[in-house]
């Protein structure tokens, strides 16, 4: 589907409803190399001669196939993924991208959340993605293309053979002739192949078949050579003797960072994202990714960020190659740092980067006002280094210092419609209300949800006999049932 998606994403293509096919040459024949959903619904399929397709469907749109451009576009997509998702991404031609999410999935909230996010973002850009996570490249390749249903698929770790068994042989990344030969012999699924002795298979089809099988099952290694497009700044150091001590790693990180910063400076750029890849002697790769809130090329600061992450590197029997890549770089012009006339405000970008790489970029934030009367909607999180908003919230009504994550139901005794409660019981404790202020009526935002068209909340500020102050509300105006349930809720605690 990739060539079709690529064409349909192009701005100059009229988004016609006419079914679209791509035509390429196989020998002397012009055949369909890709067909969109609409075309396949009309009975066209890949490999059918174009003349026949034209006879079947009169108003067919035919575009020439362009494998070279497809591959280029796929590389651009892979680069986009490399900059956002994980340090190791490679193109899996003709229509796939393989990502090593080991150690990167938790940054996105787990494997399921990562797939969900990818699905959403790719669909928005006009691509029809099929996603799968599995233990090996081969298994993920097979699952993504051949599992049933369109939902993303996550193979449970260690159960690769069981997951692969029902898939067809075409999922195996074999030459078409081999697949045809296996079908002739009566093999239908990968499970049939797994159950067959390897010797006769190898004699008949060559070593390639068993190699692909081993790779899919994880018995043979299949390293992913990360995509490194032209123009990406990368520095690399290989060691005659494998290294493993934390101090040694830190020393070489410092040297790599110095080289990288020199290269960045030569181009007038600063790094926004750094990937450190440590290739171990057992052919595994340990990755470290750090992000920066603003473009930086200060060696001391970058070194500090990377060395903070050394405890997450498992050197195993030793590291033989370290590469450091500025995956995402932005122009950075030198700026005057200080002036005699005015004192520069303290630079907290370094601190924000340190904290963000320690607890995650989403956990360092500032709060900014939103024009909404509904308390839980009046605050939004913005990036820690976003420009000042200037204003705050309207201050004519007191607001509590703590707001409960969601309002908690309380028991009360109150006179309807306008009076505050006489007492409330919250979390098993009964508070007699000594003083109260209110109501402050807040109307639902009908432009957001239909259910809020008539919703009302009446907020009261109450003080118990010990002086504790709470913010409670009643859902509804106290007279009309359609405005709310008339139940009471605790929503905040005043200081």
């Amino acid at each position: 589907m990739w060539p079709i998606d690529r064409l349909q994403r192009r701005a100059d293509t009229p988004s016609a409803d006419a079914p679209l096919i791509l035509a390429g040459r196989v020998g002397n024949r012009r055949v369909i190399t890709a067909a969109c959903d609409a075309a396949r619904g009309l009975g066209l399929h890949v490999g059918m001669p174009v003349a026949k397709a034209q006879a079947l469907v009169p108003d067919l749109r035919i575009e020439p196939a362009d494998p070279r451009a497809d591959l280029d576009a796929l590389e651009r997509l892979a680069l986009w993924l490399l900059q956002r998702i994980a340090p190791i991404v490679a193109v899996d031609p003709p229509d796939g991208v393989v990502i090593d999410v080991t150690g990167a999935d938790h940054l996105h909230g787990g494997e399921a959340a990562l797939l969900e996010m990818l699905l959403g973002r790719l669909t928005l850009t006009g691509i029809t993605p099929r996603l799968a996570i599995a233990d090996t490249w081969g298994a993920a390749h097979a699952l993504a293309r051949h599992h049933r249903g369109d939902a993303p698929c996550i193979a449970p770790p260690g159960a690769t053979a069981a997951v692969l068994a029902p898939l067809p042989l075409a999922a195996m990344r074999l030459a078409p002739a081999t697949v045809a030969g296996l079908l002739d012999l009566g093999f239908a699924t990968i499970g049939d192949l797994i159950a067959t002795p390897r010797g006769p298979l190898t004699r008949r089809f060559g070593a390639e078949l068993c190699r692909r099988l081993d790779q899919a099952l994880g018995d043979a290694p299949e390293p992913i050579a990360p995509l490194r497009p032209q123009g990406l700044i990368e520095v690399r150091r290989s060691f005659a003797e494998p290294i493993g001590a934390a101090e040694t790693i830190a020393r070489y990180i410092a040297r790599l960072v110095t080289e990288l910063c020199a290269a960045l400076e030569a181009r007038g750029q600063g790094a926004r994202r750094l990937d450190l890849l440590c290739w171990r002697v057992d052919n595994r790769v340990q990755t470290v990714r750090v992000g920066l809130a603003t473009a930086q090329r200060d060696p001391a600061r970058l070194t500090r960020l990377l060395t903070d992450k050394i405890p997450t590197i498992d050197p195993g029997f030793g590291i033989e190659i370290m590469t450091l890549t500025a995956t995402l770089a932005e122009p950075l012009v030198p700026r005057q740092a200080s002036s005699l006339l005015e004192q520069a405000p303290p630079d907290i970008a370094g601190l924000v980067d340190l904290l963000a790489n320690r607890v995650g970029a989403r956990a360092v934030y500032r709060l900014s006002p939103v024009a909404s009367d509904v308390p839980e909607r009046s605050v939004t999180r913005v990036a820690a280094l976003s420009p000042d908003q200037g204003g705050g919230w309207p201050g004519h009504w007191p607001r509590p210092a703590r707001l409960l994550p969601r309002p908690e139901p309380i028991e009360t005794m109150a006179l309807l419609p306008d009076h505050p409660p006489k007492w409330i019981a919250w979390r098993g404790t009964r508070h007699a209300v000594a003083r109260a202020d209110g109501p402050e009526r807040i109307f639902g935002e009908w432009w957001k949800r239909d259910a809020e068209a008539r919703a009302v909340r009446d907020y009261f500020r109450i003080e118990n006999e010990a002086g504790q102050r709470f913010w409670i509300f009643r859902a509804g105006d106290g007279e009309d049932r359609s405005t709310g349930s008339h139940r009471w809720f605790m929503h905040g605690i005043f200081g």
Partner: protein
Amino acid sequence: MSDARLTLAALRDRIAHLEGAEGHARKTLAFGVPALDRRLPQGGLALGCLHEVSGGPEGAGDGAVAACFAAGIAARLPGPVLWCVTQGDLFAPGLEQAGLPPDRVIYVEAGDDISLLACMEEGLRHGGLGAVVAEVARLSMTASRRLHLAAKTSGTTGLALRRWRDPAQAEDFGQPTAAMTRWRISALPSVPLPVPGVGRARWRVELVRARAGEPFEMILEGCDDTGHLGLPADVADRPAAAAGRHAFG
């Protein structure tokens, strides 16, 4: 009289020297309430130190009163404020009404107490911040000494806002730490208004422990929108000496 004062000053210098604080001219932040400032060792809250704040017995779980007290102190210090939390239930409009506008605060949500303390230490070491507030449950002697040293080297003030998920753990507040002062702030009933409604908050401000100072407690009005505490009218009208002896016990 002046001899005694000179001796006292010399002794104080010597203690400061022993504590290794002679490098900095020790700066303080006055609360702006003379009755309170007079009773603090240097006429105010020492800057570049670690201080502890906790809520009273009812407020140990939510720490809303203590949060307002800390926000009021942070609001009156220049520079950005780092507020480290483990649960994100602070309500920024409420903090703004305690004097801390949203543009000045950067929040860090740490997963557990250990990374929370690490974030606080990073903030204190950085030096560009006005104050660092951390809502922490357990604070050991070692951790607090680290934080105190970090605050001392950079001159940033640290406020450890003690807050316990389980109020029964609040006994932990009795354990010694390296903090310069330790405050307990609890809510008191506000002064009845002549009309129905709730007046300005009143707090019982207890200085439980202070290095080179004496513990005391007094009743004050809560932070206004500039972060200043106030002296209740019924106390302010009395002569200061009498107030010191009677009203605050």
